[in-house]
């Protein structure tokens, strides 16, 4: 018997790999969480004050990360999908989910961090610089809150940090001399951060190089993946809700609403919707929420058609009239009788919708209408990298590759799903 690699093996592999590679970081995060809990028990109001997005993000993803695989193993009898055979697109999509959920664990740098531009600008992949850590001056006794703040800044990297210096090379004498493009600079030895009597001077490797502002491309790619997937999932969810509710109403009741919605769908299916999306985003301003909402609203038409035709055919069936006679409310009929029946074709549609939305978001970001400068996304990375195409191919290659592989995996798993549901189509 041929033994195939299953999805659960891939999940376990990724999980163990991350644990081995990021063991110290996970321990750091856990200690930070305990730190916070003790702070919370002592001084609740200031504990709530220091709560910020990146801390919540990091601690939540650590907890989920530690719990998810053991839980999956415990409930493996019920989860059928993890026994499925692994292929390339599933593997890539699962890796994408890992990146989406566990971004702070995969890279503990800040995507916006830029320092010493002359050293770190446009470095090719796998290049490295020396990173010197200075000791922040503290001349008084620290309170519990300040200790937490200090630890949290050490572990969760802020976008600005004056206590880090990047340099090409470092000389250790009684004074520390470091070089920026062959220009020597010096710092006092005692201002350095010491760990076990040794000054903290690390070799910082940029796995995928840096961009024009000296920011780590790998980290930006990880967080960009998050933005793209968030937009995709949000817009798909919105389309799903709108499409299923309107489709149900149009199929179930018909009447004027049906006619109006049909006409509306016809307009939108008979038109390059991207222009309307651009128009609305350009006129009303674009942010991550407006992108999600506009893409979600522009995508429900095909779903509406599917749901409507399915509801029309289900309406003829006996069990449907039984459900009505028993006295189920419309919401109950929708959730208990209709959704379980139509979920299969709808799911296939949603998968393709997801790939469309991700593509549309990238195209919008490319045109400068995406999620804005505050969040890196694949499209905006490609469009800003286009200026440096002669000098730095990696600025375009990696986000482009990520986008292409995501779309390919989504499309081919959508087709696979369609084949499973409707085996007549080859």
């Amino acid at each position, binding site marked *: 018997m041929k033994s195939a690699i299953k999805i659960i093996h891939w999940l376990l592999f990724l999980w163990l790999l991350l644990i081995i590679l990021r063991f110290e970081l996970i321990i750091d995060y856990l200690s930070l969480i305990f730190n916070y809990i003790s702070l919370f028990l002592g001084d609740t109001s200031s504990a709530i004050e220091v709560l910020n997005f990146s801390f919540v993000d990091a601690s939540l993803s650590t907890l989920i990360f530690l719990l998810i695989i053991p839980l999956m193993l415990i409930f493996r009898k019920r989860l059928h999908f993890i026994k499925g055979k692994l292929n390339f697109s599933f593997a890539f999509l699962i890796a994408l989910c890992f990146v989406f959920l566990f971004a702070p664990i995969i890279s503990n740098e800040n995507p916006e961090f830029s320092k010493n531009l002359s050293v770190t600008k446009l470095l090719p992949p796998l290049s490295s610089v020396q990173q010197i850590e200075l000791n922040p001056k503290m001349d008084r006794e620290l309170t519990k809150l300040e200790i937490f703040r200090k630890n949290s800044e050490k572990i969760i990297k802020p976008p600005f940090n004056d206590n880090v210096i990047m340099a090409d090379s470092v000389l250790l004498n009684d004074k520390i001399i470091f070089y920026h493009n062959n220009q020597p600079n010096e710092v006092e030895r005692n201002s350095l951060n010491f760990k076990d009597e040794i000054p903290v001077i690390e070799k910082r490797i940029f796995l995928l190089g840096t961009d024009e502002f000296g920011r780590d491309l790998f980290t930006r790619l990880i967080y960009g993946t998050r933005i793209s997937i968030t937009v995709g999932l949000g817009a798909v969810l919105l389309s799903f809700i709108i499409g299923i509710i309107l489709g149900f109403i149009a199929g179930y009741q018909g009447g004027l609403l049906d006619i109006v919605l049909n006409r509306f769908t016809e307009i939108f299916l*008979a038109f390059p919707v991207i222009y309307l999306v651009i128009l609305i985003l350009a006129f009303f301003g674009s942010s991550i929420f407006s992108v999600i909402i506009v893409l979600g609203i522009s995508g429900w038409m095909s779903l509406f058609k599917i749901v409507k035709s399915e509801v029309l055919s289900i309406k003829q069936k006996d069990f449907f009239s039984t459900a009505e006679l028993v006295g189920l409310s419309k919401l109950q009929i929708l959730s208990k009788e209709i959704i379980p029946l139509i979920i299969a074709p709808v799911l296939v549609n949603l998968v393709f919708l997801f790939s469309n939305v991700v593509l549309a978001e990238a195209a919008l970001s490319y045109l400068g209408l995406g999620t804005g400068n505050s969040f890196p996304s694949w499209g905006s990375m490609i469009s800003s990298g286009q200026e440096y195409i002669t000098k730095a191919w990696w600025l375009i290659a990696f986000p*482009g590759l990520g986008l*292409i592989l995501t779309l390919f995996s989504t499309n081919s798993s959508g087709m696979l799903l369609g084949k499973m549901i409707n085996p007549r189509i080859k």
Partner: protein
Amino acid sequence: MKIDIIKTLFTRFLSSVLTLFLLVSFLFIIIRLSPGDPTDNYISAKLGTELSEKIAEKFSLNQPITNQYFAFISNIIRGDMGVSYNYRLPVFEVIWQYFSFTLVFASISFILQITLSIWIALWVIKKRKRWLDNFLTNSSIFVYSIPAFALGVALIYIFSFNLNIFPISGLKSLDYDYLPFFSQFLDKLHHLVLPLITLSAGGVALFYKYIKESMDELNSQTFILNLRASGLEDNVILRKHILPNALRPLISVAGIELGILLGGALITEVIFSLPGMGRLTVDSIFSRDYPLVIGCVFTAGAVMILANFLADIAKLRLDKRLIKGILN
């Protein structure tokens, strides 16, 4: 039969007019809802509000919104789209300048997509190699998944920067005006090679998948088996019986694709800075050139409807029984 066809045409025409009317009304509402007022440009510390009021009166912007809407609709019915703010020309003239390029560009790309995909599908079926079939099916999904801007930028990087074979952008060389006629033509073609590849790759992959799927399905049907048993050559079966039947599902997809292409190949035109409808539309949106925005979107909608109509006619030519389906 003839009355049926005339009736069909008439209802189709009415419903497309209604669609376009709703589209334009929708645009009017969006533009009116959007923040910002065109007359704000004319307010400054020195001028006060007098000039802006004058402008508002001249363009009837101080009248109630319903009056403005009816004036707008009646102007459109009379074929007057207004004057573009940026170009200082009637909207139709501006659009015609850009649309003529898009028409040529889109038609070449469309023909390329159809012929290439059919040719590849026929070639694969004749070869009868399983690995080739699988490879092409997978790579067609892959090619279809490549976004236009990623492909365009990659092509520029490879062919323009590293190999220096094709120009980066634009439609004409610097010495275009001094070239003889035939070289002018070649020069334009030379500039269009990379944009055409960028625009057509996805379409070729999509069409290939559609044709291949329906050909495979037809291949296993009994009437083909019957023909084969009666001793007809494989080549004849493929060309005379499988291909026409396989084209039918393709045509509606092709209609939509043609409509999208004629509406403007947005991303491709932006990457290679070509003077087409897509870039005109986006530029007019960004510069808030409202009459031109409405004109461009109107054109894209009209072209889309026309393309779908052409697809229906093509389907009808292949199969006369479809008249009932199109009637609705």
